[in-house]
Every structure is written in C-alpha cells, then in structure tokens.
C-alpha cells in the first residue's frame, strides 16, 4: 500500500502512451480532414492579398532603379521634411544596389510595406476597441501574449498545411508577430488621454465619434506612432523567418550564410535589413512628430 502511494507521488499520473498517441493522431487527422475540405476555399480567400503582394513586388522590380531612388527620396522628404534623412536613404539604397542586393531588397520592401499596412489596418481599430471596453481588453490581452510568445513554427505548420509555402503564410507569420505592439500602444495611448480633456469635449457637446477622431486619436498619436514604429521593426526582424517558408527577399541569402558560415554574405544582407529598418523608422517617427506640432515644445528639425 505504502509503496503504491510512493509510486503515485513519484510519477505524475499521466495519460497512457497509447491514449496520448490516439489523442494526437485524432487532432492531426481532424486537421487533415479540415484542410482537405476547406483548404482550397481558404486559399481562395487569401488570393486577393497574394495578387496584391505579387503585383507590388513585380512593380518594384520592373521600375528602373533611378525612379525608385527618386520615389524613396520623395517619400522620405514628404514624411520627414529632412534633406539629411532623404539623402541618407538614397545613399543606403545605392549601396544596397551596388552590393547586388537590389532585387532581394525590393521583394522585402513589398512584403514589409504590405505587412505594416495590414497590421495598422487591423491593429489600430482593435486597439481602439480595447480602449473602449475593459472586457474586450481582458480578452484580447492574453491573445496578444500568445501571438508574441508562441514559437513561430507551432502556428506556421497548420498555416503551411492550409496555404502551402510562399508569400501569404510569410505575411501571416510577420503580422502575427508584428501586430501586437500596434494594438497595445493604440489601446494605451487612448486610455492615457486626460479625463479633463474628455470632459471638456463632452461639455462642448461632442458625440463619441467626434471625441474619438477629434480628441482621443490626435492626443494618442505619440503612442500610436510608437506602435507603428515597433510594428515596422518587428516586421523587418521577421524577414528571415518568412524566408524559411519560401518568401523571396533578403532573408534567403541570410539563411544561406548561416548554413554555410558565409560571414560577408550574412553581414551584407543583415545590414541591408537594418538599413531598411532605420529608414522606415526615422521617416515614420518624424512624420508622427510633425503631426503633433501643435503640441509645441517638440523638436522638428
């Protein structure tokens, strides 16, 4: 009797190996059936996104490089109003091209821009919704925790089984990881808006829509832009992971370099990713700051 008790406390009373195997096989089988019946429909659902990604990439690749440089300079200046930054961006692109990474960089830019747009388009409304309701916040926060911590291939495997390898699963992987800061910081920004300001808005008879777009979002902009910024950074950090599931871009040479200890190749492509990140980051930050010039006191060089 005593020995049995010891046995009980010694080993955790786990599921038998056979049951555990059957349990796993049942889940795998159910997913396989789901993928067989719904896979094509789900693929079709994402087709417009794929179409857009391919068109954007083809467009970027087809455009003559001087045009791209002009566009880069123009966008940088429009965003930041800084000559220094625009010239720096053009120089980095010229270096990237000179070292033979132009095409990969264009593919990466296509993926990152679409990913960022998607993250903002989904993340901002989610964040606003979370700010409006504590209940929504208590549901979405743990979901965001899962998105940021779950090992990537755990959720990528089912995605790959449904959609195959390529751009769309790559985009999903990037967005799952890069969207949470957007949601969190939008939520935080709106929650931090001064209660007195809101009362004043109420006193002027603003309805909730006017309050949101006229008061809350403008005042939350610093946080929202910090969110966009973080999203861009994290999206770029995911470029290599996306390449592990067949997305063309700067990640492929990095993978090659890691596999074969090609120091220079890895460093060059890694630095190209860093260069893109810095350009995206500085331009979006400056743009965010310019939007808040009315607050005064901030530098806008």
């Amino acid at each position: 009797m005593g020995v049995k008790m010891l046995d009980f406390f010694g080993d955790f009373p786990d599921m038998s190996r056979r049951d555990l195997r059957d349990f796993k096989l049942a889940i795998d089988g159910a997913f396989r059936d789901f993928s067989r019946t719904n896979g094509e429909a789900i693929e079709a659902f994402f087709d417009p996104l794929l179409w857009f990604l391919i068109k954007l990439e083809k467009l970027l690749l087809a455009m003559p490089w001087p045009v791209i440089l002009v566009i880069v300079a123009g966008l940088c200046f429009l965003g930041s109003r800084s000559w220094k930054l625009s010239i720096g961006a053009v120089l980095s692109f010229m270096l990237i091209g000179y070292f033979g990474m132009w095409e990969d960089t264009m593919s990466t830019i296509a993926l990152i821009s679409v990913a960022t747009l998607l993250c903002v388009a989904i993340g901002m409304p989610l964040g606003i919704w979370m700010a409006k309701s504590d209940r929504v916040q208590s549901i979405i926060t743990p979901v965001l925790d899962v998105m940021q911590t779950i090992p990537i291939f755990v959720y990528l495997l089912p995605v790959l089984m449904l959609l195959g390898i390529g751009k769309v699963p790559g985009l999903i992987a990037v967005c799952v990881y890069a969207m949470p800061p957007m949601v969190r910081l939008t939520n935080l920004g709106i929650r931090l808006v001064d209660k007195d300001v809101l009362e004043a808005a109420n006193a002027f008879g603003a309805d909730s829509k006017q309050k949101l777009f006229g008061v809350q979002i403008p005042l939350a902009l610093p946080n929202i832009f910090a969110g966009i910024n973080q999203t861009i950074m994290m999206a770029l950090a995911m470029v290599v992971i996306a390449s592990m599931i067949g997305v063309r871009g700067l990640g492929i040479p990095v993978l090659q370099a890691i596999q074969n200890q090609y120091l220079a190749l890895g460093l060059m492509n890694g630095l190209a990713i860093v260069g893109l990140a810095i350009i995206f980051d500085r331009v979006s930050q400056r743009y965010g700051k310019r939007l808040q010039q009315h607050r005064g006191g901030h530098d806008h060089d």
Partner: protein
Amino acid sequence: MKKLLISAAILAGTAFGLSGQANAACGDFQMSDMNWPSATLMANVDKIILEEGYGCNIELIPGATTATFATMNEKGQPHVAAELWTNAVSVELEKAMAEGRLHSAIRGPITELGEGWWVTPGTLSRNPEFKTVMDVLERPDLFPDKEDPSKGAFIGCPAGWGCQLANQSLFRAFEMEKKGWVLVDPGSQAGLDASMAKAAQRDENWIGYYWAPTAPVGKYEMKLMDFGVPFAGAENWDSCIALGPEKCGNPKPSAWTESVVQTVVTSEIKAMPDVMEYFGKRIYPGPVMNGMLVYMEDNQATGPDAALEFLEKHQDIWTKWVSADVAAKVKKSL
C-alpha cells in the same frame, strides 16, 4: 527424392554447423547506434538477432557519422556501423579498406535510399504516362506555381544546403526554365516538408527534391522518379553540378549521384563468417523501412521498441536473412 533428402540433410547440417560455430566464434563487440531513426532501428534489430540467434554480446555505442567513423578508423571500435553514409568519408574509408582495417559487409543495406526527385502518388496515378523525370518536365502546366500559375513549380532544396546547388545545376542542365518551370526555394526543411505534406494530403500534383529513408516519404508514400538519363559521371557531378551554376555554367544532364550506404565492419568482425553472412543478406526494402520510420514517429518509439515491432510484424523479411534455426531462436525470444 533421394536428391531432395540429401540436400535437406546438407541444409540441416550447415544450419547446425553454422549455429554451433556462431556460439563458439561470436564474442563481445560494439555496434554504433547512430543518431537518426533508421540507423538506430537497424542497430537494435542487429543486436537482437545477433544476441539471440548467434550468441553474440553486443554493446550499442551512440554516435554520429564522422565521430563514429573516426573512432572505428583509429581505434577499431565500435566494430560495426550499420548504416554509414560513406560519401562523406569516402577518401578515408577507401584508404582504410585498402589497408585492410575496415571492410564493407554490405553495400546498400536499405533499398531505394538516397536523394532524388519525388512526386506524390496521386501525380503518378493521374498521369500514368509519367515514367521518368523527363516525361514530367514536359508538363509544367500540371504543377502550377501559386505565385505565377503559368509556370510549373519545382520545389528545390532549402537555402544554404549543399543540395541547393545541385538542384540549381540540374534545373539548368534540363533547361527547365525554357520548358516553363520555376525553381521554388522552400527556405527550410520545415518549408520543404510542409509543401510536400500539403500536396500529398490534398492529393495534388507535386514534384520536388527529397531523400529516403525518411518518415515523410513513408507517410505520404512518395514515389522516387527515375531521371530518364544516366548518371553522367563523377567528374560532371563533383566538379560541376555540385558546385552550382555560379561556378559551373555548363552542367550536363545527369541522374542524381548515388548515395553510397554501407554496413562497415572492422577486421575482428570480418573474421566471423556467419556474422558476415548475416550482414550480407540483411537488406531492408525501402518502403518497409520508411513505414517503420512512420511507426517510430507516430509512436515516438525508441530504437529497441521499433526493433521489436519490426521483428514481430515483418517476419517474412528478416527470417530470410538467417537460417531457420536462428530464426526460431530469435522468434522464441520476442
């Protein structure tokens, strides 16, 4: 009738003689238990059969290819490497064999192994006219690429792997771009596996690079395609195709280079004729091995578990490797 009796008597005699000899000659030795599923299965099957049937006493030593080979070569231990992929160590192995330190007990202990181009079973059943890779290459329209459906997708080897260069060279040698194909880089083994698994589960057409013996090949019953061209020589392969298009602009069409797998033994084992005879007959049919790998994966089976499963389920195979007497002894022990 008389003739039959005599041959039966001779057979029985040899069997007894052999087993008697075995018990006398077989002592303690070490076998390498390599760290991948098919090798550990083979080592454990060998251990059970040689211990129960031949009275050997075997210790399994864990290890990987290079480390195992190095200690076998230098110290003569472990005494047996059941599944040694000898392409990686060919120069040293040839030297050791010439000097009589190491010996090949059998070349190709598993059939249908190695690298190559595979298709899903549905691809073949829907297109019975596909006899070789060359036939498949004429029909890119049956393998539409997701990103450009006007092209056929050939799934190559993950970025940075040695086989990536060989696949790029073959892609060029077979003029696949002109025939309307794109070479898709799956990026990682996870990507390659998922691409194949998705196609097999949905019963879609798929052609790409893979290798055997592996669980996915068994699980999805993938079919290895004959290239339809002969192997165009080691010179073409080693100093052109394997180097990739950047270093070799003009690769000749060729079948994939043969992966040589051998059971390698030291001189001590070579001196045991019945053990050598067993190794010489011990050939696993590829599909059976792949099926065992699926079993191991599904059940998270260890080498000894899988060896028992193999000995119980596949008696028709292993009983042919040994005499009736040995087979009976092994069966009794299960």
